[in-house]
């Protein structure tokens, strides 16, 4: 249980735009040109253990999706390393780690039949003998709750919830043991979302899957995961077992986030907002990225980035208040 299955070690991902010859020439002429760097992920380290469901939470631009893609080998880290069972996954997709995507419309190739969408990879990789692919596909479709008789249809003939299931079947087809779910239910209606979340849990049981569950929806994450990692502007600010995190968030950002989440049980409440906006990842504030919005900010916060440290057993937080 405690064996790390997927591990991020000091992973950094920057998207850079460098100056080319002409721009450097113009710079010498005195033109105001500059390259720019997006720090999408900044020295992130954590591990997902076998059988675990880790929720990765954060707002837009915090780098959670980039992190998901790093996990699947769709991005290559600028520094640090991503390891699957100790083997590096640096920009090279590993079949055992598959991704479930957010958009049920754009995540399926509109020009392929369901049987090809699901069956292509196992056939190409020779996971299943060619003759058995149709049966294999049927079996997968049944597993995700779709009638195999629809396998000759195209994605546009399915509803959003059904497409999400096709996407899951496609990932399962290469027999992964680790799924990265990137906002996998965000685009679905509440009632459909519930069905798909249930499916995830069923699969976890029956196939023994491990999940990295990326979402901005704290409700979904709290429901599903054992452990939650909170990111803010490319950095992990807090990591804790789910129940503990929701019961007593440690980092000021986590606290603010939880306070803002609308909840059914809080009726006719007075909204009390957090101040300021999320800064652009092009120019993150110095020191602790959260300090301009933090109610507890101290001068030190603007100068020095707080390290992630253990504040209680199994709980990590990056805040100078804890020091």
């Amino acid at each position, binding site marked *: 249980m405690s064996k790390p299955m997927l591990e991020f070690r000091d992973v950094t991902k920057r998207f850079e735009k460098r100056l080319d010859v002409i721009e450097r020439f113009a710079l010498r002429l005195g033109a105001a040109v500059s390259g720019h760097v997006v720090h999408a992920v900044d020295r992130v380290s954590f591990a997902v253990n076998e059988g675990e469901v880790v929720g990765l939470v954060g707002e837009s631009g915090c780098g959670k999706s980039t992190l998901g*893609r790093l996990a*699947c*080998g*769709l991005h290559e880290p600028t520094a640090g390393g991503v390891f699957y069972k100790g083997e590096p996954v640096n920009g090279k*997709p*590993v*079949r055992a780690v*598959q*991704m479930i*995507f*957010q*958009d049920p419309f*754009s*995540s*399926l*190739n*509109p*020009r*392929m039949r369901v049987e090809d969408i699901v069956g*292509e*990879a196992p056939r*190409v*990789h020779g996971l299943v003998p060619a003759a058995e692919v149709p049966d294999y596909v049927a079996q997968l479709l*049944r597993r995700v*709750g*779709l*009638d195999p008789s*629809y396998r*000759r*249809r*195209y994605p*546009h*003939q*399915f*509803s959003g*919830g*059904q497409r999400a*299931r096709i*996407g899951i079947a*496609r*990932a399962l*087809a*290469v027999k992964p043991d680790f799924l990265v779910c990137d906002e996998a239910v965000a685009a679905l209606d509440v009632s459909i979302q519930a*069905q798909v979340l*249930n*499916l995830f849990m*069923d699969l976890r049981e029956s196939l023994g899957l491990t999940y990295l569950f990326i979402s901005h929806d704290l409700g979904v994450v709290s429901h599903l995961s054992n452990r939650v990692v909170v990111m803010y502007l490319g950095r992990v600010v807090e990591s804790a077992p789910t129940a503990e995190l929701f019961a007593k968030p440690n980092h000021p950002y986590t606290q603010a986030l939880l306070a803002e989440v609308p909840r059914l049980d809080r009726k006719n409440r007075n909204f009390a907002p957090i101040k300021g906006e999320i800064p652009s990842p092009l120019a993150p504030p110095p020191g602790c990225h959260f300090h301009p919005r933090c109610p507890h900010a101290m001068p030190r916060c603007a100068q020095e980035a707080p390290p992630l440290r253990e504040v209680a057993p199994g709980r990590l937080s990056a805040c100078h208040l804890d020091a």
Partner: protein
Amino acid sequence: MSAVLPAAEPAPQTPFRRFLEEFFESKLATLGFAVLAAIVLVALLAPLVAPQNPYDLGKLDLLDARLEPGTKGGAGMTYVLGTDGQGRDMLSAILYGLRVSLYVGVVSGIIALTLGALTGVLAAYAGGRIEQFVMRVVDIQLGFPAILVALILLAVLGKGVDKIIIALVCVQWAYYARTARSAALVERGKEYMEAARGLGLSGTRIVLRHLLPNALPPLIVVGTVQVAHAIALEATLSFLGLGLPTTEPSLGLLIANGYEYLMSGKYWISFYPGVALLVTILSINLVGDQLRDVLNPRLAK
């Protein structure tokens, strides 16, 4: 969760079927398609349906030159649409001319499309310097006005069907490359592309099976317009004295040849090929128009 969900609609429907249904919703487009189909059929069957082989100089009779429509010629043949200055039966000449025009338009279109689509899609897929380079070449090519490129090329290459096809391909490929690239860029950003990579599929497979087919619809729209353009451009080049061999006239060349008779009232030498050209281009454009509407994702209901 074991309950099996019902599908949205009962009938299995391919994207192509759906496309057909939407396409034929417009009466005008249906008409255009029907006319175009008829034209293509007639052009293909020209050797069988034409009363005369207008390209065989030995079959022409100079003494029957410039006969009015409906006149009976020396050899007893009735020229339904009259004859041109060589005694060529206009009806046959138009049928064969259609064949040449369509051949030139379609073949150059297909070659240009293939070339352009591949470069465009590869540029989009590869990104970086390769993309920069390809797109600069495309920009340069598009900066040159088509007609001038064709003019110079033909001046260098000389006349002939193959030559004009080369010229038209040179002129057109960049349009396809640009369209293919922008379409591929949109598709490249979609999640199914990432999924394909995540599944460990090879680059070639991703480009050919995933990227290319999805970048194709806008190319087909551009293609129809470009085929019409190519036919018109060939006609213009023939008019300017470059283009096809004079003994095997395309529609454009027929018009150009008959052009000088327009003033003198021998309208049929230029008029009927003109009508044939107009109807052809018109029907291609009608089809292209509807294709554009049906295939445009932004207008999809």
